[in-house]
């Protein structure tokens, strides 16, 4: 078995490089993506290789350049529109929802919009309230969008390739704190046509006692919590959602029907969130009858993100919060 260590950043970079090479219609636009090599260096080297035509630096005008990207997609190109962080996508959210997501439906199939909106989402470190919001629930709410939230380098590579090759609008939620994290990637995953299907979750760790569902960076914490709990004889089944919309409810249900317990773990706010959706689906589906305890959500604290480290650390789930919630659920 041949494995190499690749950071999430490099996986994203390679995926974009390969897709740019494969299809001439693919291009990248966003702030600092070209000559700066990307604000977070995700697009490092691409401008040097592909030039001004295909890697485009934009002015700081999200609403404008997101609209331009959508228009280009309507006219036959395949843009990757980078938001420096998804917080700034709020400026452009009308173009994402009303111009991109809804158009195929409104036109009864005449006009498709093959576009990817990507960028870091959710909390970072010390960037405070306006730069730390998680948009998984916001975009996950809307029909017409696919919303993807990779965790590992393999996720990043396979899902970004799928997103770029998808003929529909895909919101691709990365995580800044994951960019530098290395993962072992198999030889198979290095193939230029390695694709991970959108809409399918992955079981990162098998277990019999409780299902722990998460996405993005929180998956790391769940696995760490699971390792600690395993020493006490509690075996967690950790599911990496990979896709927010369409949600792989079946994978979660199958797991719950085996373990009889469920918690969800996310970085975003609790109200009307990803966890809330998962719990509702479990209530409405076949797995409900298999629950031995109420399913619960572990989420970010219901406040704007503070700055001071001690406050910030206590605004998002920590490993101890996951362990605590698992034990509470199992003792209920």
């Amino acid at each position: 078995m041949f494995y190499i260590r690749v950071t999430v950043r490099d996986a994203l970079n390679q995926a974009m490089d390969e897709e740019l090479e494969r299809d001439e219609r693919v291009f990248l636009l966003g702030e600092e993506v070209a000559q700066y090599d990307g604000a977070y260096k995700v697009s490092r080297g691409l401008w040097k290789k592909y030039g001004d035509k295909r890697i485009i630096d934009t002015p700081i005008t999200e609403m404008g350049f997101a609209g331009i990207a959508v228009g280009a997609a309507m006219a036959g190109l395949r843009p990757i529109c980078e938001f420096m962080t998804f917080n700034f996508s709020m400026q452009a959210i009308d173009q994402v929802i009303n111009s991109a997501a809804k158009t195929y439906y409104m036109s009864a199939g005449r006009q498709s919009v093959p576009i990817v909106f990507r960028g870091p989402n959710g909390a970072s470190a010390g960037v405070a309230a306006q730069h730390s919001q998680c948009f998984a629930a916001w975009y996950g709410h809307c029909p017409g969008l696919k919303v993807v939230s990779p965790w590992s380098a393999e996720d990043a590579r396979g899902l970004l390739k799928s997103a770029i090759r998808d003929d529909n609008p895909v919101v691709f939620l990365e995580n800044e704190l994951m960019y530098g994290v290395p993962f072992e990637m198999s030889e198979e995953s290095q193939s230029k046509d390695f694709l991970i299907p959108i809409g399918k979750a992955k079981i990162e760790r098998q277990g019999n006692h409780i299902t722990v569902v998460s996405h993005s960076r929180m998956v790391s914490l769940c696995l760490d919590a699971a390792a600690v709990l395993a020493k006490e004889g509690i075996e967690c089944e950790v599911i990496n959602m990979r896709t927010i919309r369409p949600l792989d409810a079946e994978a979660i249900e199958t797991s719950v029907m085996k373990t009889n317990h469920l918690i969800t773990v996310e970085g975003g706010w609790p109200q009307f969130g990803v966890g809330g959706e998962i719990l509702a689906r479990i209530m409405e589906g076949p797995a409900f009858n298999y629950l031995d305890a109420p399913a619960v959500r572990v989420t970010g604290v219901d406040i704007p993100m503070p700055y001071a480290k001690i406050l910030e650390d206590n605004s998002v789930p920590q490993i101890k919060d996951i362990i605590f919630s698992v034990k509470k659920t199992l003792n209920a």
Partner: protein
Amino acid sequence: TGVMPSKKIQLFYHRNYYILKYIKIENFHFELFLFIFWKKCDLHKLEEGPPLQAVLTREEGLQYYRTMQTIRRMELKADQLYKQKIIRGFCHLYDGQEACAVGIETGINLSDHLITAYRAHGYTLTRGGTVREIMAELTGRRGGIAKGKGGSMHMYTKHFYGGNGIVGAQVPLGAGVALACKYLGNNEICVCLYGDGAANQGQIFETYNMASLWKLPCIFICENNKYGMGTSVERAAASTDYYKRGDFIPGLRLDGMDVLCVREATKFAAEHCRSGKGPILMELQTYRYHGHSMSDPGVSYRTREEIQEVRSKSDPISMLKDRMLSNNMASVEELKEIDVEVRKEIEDAAQFATTDPEPPLDDLCNHIFYNDPPMEVRGTNPWTKLKSVS
């Protein structure tokens, strides 16, 4: 420009325009051409504007007349159907502005691209839609151009990107289409329309900036009909010189009620874009007879006298008709015959639009994603699982 030997020339002044009547006689065959001269249109950052004259042939005249009349009658029929509650929701009518849609289309090719806002029925027609499909979309039937799923504001045809409901959002989209044209090197351009109300939107200025920086082949066109819903231009804009608002983008302002003026300006603008000079901005001064939409009587913020004055002095269809009649380019009977044909076409379309069945419920969840396998969509309750295909 290629003047043929003439047999008879008359020059006379008619309502602000000079008209040179010229008859070419060749092999006992009469062909009547009109040279029409305008006063120079207002220019911004342009040394020269569009030519000050145009040639109108009989064939062209009849075609423009027919198309404008079709739009006019179609919109009036929509008014009727709306009042009968056969059309519902939003309905923004275009009567009065016909010269813009028709003039623009004659200045570009069908292979070029166009996008506009919600007052879009006229453009749907000029861009290749049929009256039948348009009306059936308004009445929400399966034969509608968007199968009944879009409605008045969301009609699409080839190289026509709607029909957009969010004021101003279509402008960046249009520039994106222009970017694709430049990227693909196909020598096509995008005409990107917006109104005087939208002209103050921030995203439009963001678009001006990028279109200009990247020299996108985009014609920005402001259809200034003097009112953004109920707000007159003086109350909405610190500068009502919309053709100058592009700042570093060259602009021109012209009479949007004169179909030939619009055509010549569009040709000029298209040439500008195709030659790689980047975007250009046109302001068409026009007028809508109806209110903003069918829920707006249109007389609380403007006087009936004003509307009547425009109708009697500047109606685009009358203007063309007068030109053609007073120069013997067509007879009264001929134009009447066109009117009758148009009326019939509209009646047939209305008939279709009122009798065609509504879309089947099976279609409810379709067209969410393109090129995807069939999927399940949640209905109104957890037990209802609906099918969705691409």
